[in-house]
């Protein structure tokens, strides 16, 4: 019984499957527009859910903005013009790669500053240690004691 039902199901889906698979068949031009739209919107932050890109967000505003980008592509605007359109309205914050300018200098070069500070700290530490090791010479008495201890180690049970 179950096997027969299953067979029926398989047959039905074989017939019906292709029917609704045909639903979204974009034409060639749409594919180009859509690709550009996705490329642009991946560069942009969705302001409603800030850790999602405009391309990935399901927020209402993101849908509207994707529509806006699509329409602007269709009306022949360049990628740069569309990015400028967004920045004019929402500020540099919408771009995942904000432009290099006065206000964003620290953002771009801050990590390198930290790296340089870390390297400088490490260098200072190493130099100071090297000096300390060089200074640490043994007195004659200490030298003798050390040799005795070493001898003791050789003659004993060993390590």
């Amino acid at each position, binding site marked *: 019984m179950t096997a027969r039902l299953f067979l029926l199901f398989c047959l039905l889906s074989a017939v019906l499957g292709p029917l609704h698979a045909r639903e979204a068949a974009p034409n060639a031009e749409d594919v180009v527009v859509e690709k550009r739209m996705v490329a642009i919107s991946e560069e942009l932050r969705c302001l409603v859910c*800030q850790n999602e890109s405009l391309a990935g967000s399901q927020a209402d*505003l993101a849908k*509207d903005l994707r529509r806006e980008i699509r329409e602007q592509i269709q009306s022949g605007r360049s990628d740069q013009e569309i990015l400028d359109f967004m920045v004019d*309205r*929402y500020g540099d914050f919408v771009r995942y790669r904000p432009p290099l300018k006065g206000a964003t200098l620290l953002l771009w070069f801050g990590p390198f500053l930290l790296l340089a500070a870390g390297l400088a700290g490490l260098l200072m530490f190493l130099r100071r240690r090297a000096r300390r090791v060089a200074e640490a010479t043994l007195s004659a008495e200490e030298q003798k004691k050390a040799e005795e201890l070493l001898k003791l180690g050789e003659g004993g049970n060993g390590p």
Partner: protein
Amino acid sequence: MNKFLLPLGIFIVLVAFLAIGLNLNPREVPSPLIGKPAPAFTLPQLHQPEATFAPKDLQGRVWLLNVWASWCVSCRQEHPILVDLAKRNIVPIYGLNYKDPREDALRWLKQFGDPYVLSIADVEGRVGIDYGVYGVPETYVIDKAGVIRFKQIGPVTQDVLEKTILPLIRELQK
């Protein structure tokens, strides 16, 4: 003793940065529109769809543009404050009804009171995009020359109204 001074110093600086960072509101993105002319548009009015409204109609006046919607929860929070402000007759408030079906918007105003001189219907949210709206409610202070002088993101609170918005409006009305 001296050995611990440097790590302690770094730690204190780090804590200070974190304390400042945690007290900032990440939802408040500074608007690039401050100091720029309010974007032009012409849209139908909510109550009389056959009549339109354009910001240039208000040239020479200081006014508030409040973006609201019946589906917006924090709009209810700020609404009594706007109703109260409207009664004080200090500044005209215009509403931008954002992405809202007309019937819902009208019912909402009936239910909670209508502080607006008039509301404009931005059903598709295109004017919202021009104004950089990303979190309703938002409120813009627009001066006599039609320049945006201040933008409140999120609900207007009594505190913001008394300490920031009203002093600015008095200054602009001079």
